[in-house]
């Protein structure tokens, strides 16, 4: 308990400073910066939401793109460019809830699957929804894609920031609660957890639902940035793989691991794409392979190791002097 209190205080000040810098960004930042940070925040939200469930339980979910896409489509239906039906924050909330409900439903049916089977099923979910929507648009509505109301960049940015803050608070409270402890025990040994009185199915389903809420909300707000969406854009499988890679790249041991991982990853992607349009995928791939081979605990693990070495080196020097 003392340790958590200590770490929370240690992160409170840097956290608040970062938040202030971000909250005032549209006042001094260029339009490009605001849009870039919005994209980075979106990836952070996807990665951290993924870690909420898959981190402690060890269930590898590839359904992120499905929940993200459902959020995108919800926004497209509720805010077509022909006329907005509901205010933006309400739409974002509804999108989150629909994604969350979908996750609860899917989770209740499939969370008995373990390992690779769960991963394959969740990935299949993305394809199923995409194909159903394609069929629907082709056969029933006879349209292709949808246009979404254009929202100004600052509003998109602030709503994304709001989702990010809500997400980080949720993660923080889950980690500190007895619910979080139960979640972790499921990853350690699910059978023992069940025989210790933990309703493992319920804990897993609820957590899966919570993680999907944030993915759906992020999808809804991104839809207004993209303005045109179709099933291929909304249910792009990259949004299932990216969060996993970002979380592994950043390191999942700490709360801020996936945040840092996603931020660096998203920034790298953006800059490489603009500076080396032809070689960007190649460079990106090499960076990824090197990270997975040599950074088993991610960027955060590397930093912790360096700090430890530096401290040890420091004290050795002191000993030598005395």
């Amino acid at each position, binding site marked *: 308990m003392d340790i958590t209190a200590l770490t929370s205080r240690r992160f409170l000040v840097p956290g608040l400073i970062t938040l202030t810098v971000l909250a005032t960004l549209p006042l001094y930042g260029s339009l490009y910066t605001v849009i870039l940070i919005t994209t980075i925040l979106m990836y952070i939200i996807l990665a951290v939401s993924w870690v909420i469930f898959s981190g402690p339980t060890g269930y590898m979910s590839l359904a992120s793109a499905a929940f993200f896409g459902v959020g995108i489509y919800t926004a497209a239906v509720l805010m077509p460019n022909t006329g907005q039906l509901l205010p933006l924050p309400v739409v974002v909330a509804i999108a989150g809830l629909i994604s969350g409900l979908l996750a609860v439903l899917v989770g209740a049916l499939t969370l008995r699957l373990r390992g690779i089977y769960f991963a394959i099923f969740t990935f299949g979910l993305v394809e199923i929804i995409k194909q159903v929507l394609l069929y629907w648009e082709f056969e029933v509505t006879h349209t292709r894609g949808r246009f979404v109301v254009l929202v100004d960049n600052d509003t998109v940015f602030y709503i994304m920031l709001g989702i990010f803050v809500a997400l980080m608070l949720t993660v923080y409270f889950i980690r500190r609660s007895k619910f979080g402890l139960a979640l*972790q025990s499921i990853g*350690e040994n699910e*059978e*023992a*957890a*069940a*025989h*210790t*009185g*933990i309703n493992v199915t319920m804990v897993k389903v609820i957590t899966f639902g919570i993680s999907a809420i944030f993915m759906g909300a992020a999808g809804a707000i991104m839809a207004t940035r993209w303005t045109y969406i179709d099933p291929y854009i909304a249910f792009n499988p990259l949004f299932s793989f990216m969060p996993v890679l970002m979380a592994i790249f950043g390191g999942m041991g700490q709360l801020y691991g996936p945040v840092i991982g996603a931020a660096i990853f998203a920034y790298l992607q953006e800059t490489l794409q603009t500076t080396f349009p032809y070689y960007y995928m190649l460079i990106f791939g090499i960076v990824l392979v090197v990270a997975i081979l040599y950074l088993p605990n991610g960027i955060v693990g590397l930093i912790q190791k360096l700090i430890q070495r530096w401290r040890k080196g420091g004290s050795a020097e002191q000993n030598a002097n005395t």
Partner: protein
Amino acid sequence: MQILEGEGVTKYFGGLAAVSKVDFHVDQGEIAGLIGPNGAGKTTLFNLISAALVPKPGTIRFKGEKITGLKPHKICRLGLARTFQEVKIFSNMTVLENVLLGSLFGCSTGMSSADASREAEELLEFVGLSAVRTTPAKDLTLVNQKRIEVARALATKPELLMLDELMAGLNPAEVAQAMELVTRIRDKGITIFMIEHVMKAIMSVCDRIMVLHHGEKIAEGTPQEIAISKKVVEVYLGE
């Protein structure tokens, strides 16, 4: 009074009857033993009682109430806790957290986290693990990991505790300590049902013993009766 009773409990794995039409009971307050050669179906029977597996057919009653078909966490909250043959601890959590989970989730009546940690600390004292309470569970020796399991099971406030080979892999001194622990648990008023291969241990602590062989119950009685039973001797030593 019978705290646990089973009627015609059966479990097939494919065509093989791992447990076949077993009637059994455990009396309130006793230490009941379950023995039998390897593959006799002892652990399967434990799994059926704790709902890791579901009997088909057969019914199991706990405190007079039918528990077949309930989920494992429900059975735990009713007051029936167990340990495992191969230790199943939460390896990367501390010893205290392992036990705390039992206090927090194991009983139907809610408990404040302050009470839960106090209780977990007391149980660590009871099994003799107070000194290592902040150590990750995976860093402990086998005997201490088994103690974590016992403390975690006790934290769920059971009326009946099922111990699956608590003494397997322990040296003679550790077996003696484990036997002493078992009697101390019974003295708390908790009924015990245990599977054991260490004969010395089971003969000296149990009030009553059941013998399984090829999934069927072949004998039942006091340790003295079991020791001289012709059938049991045949099964263990051959005809």
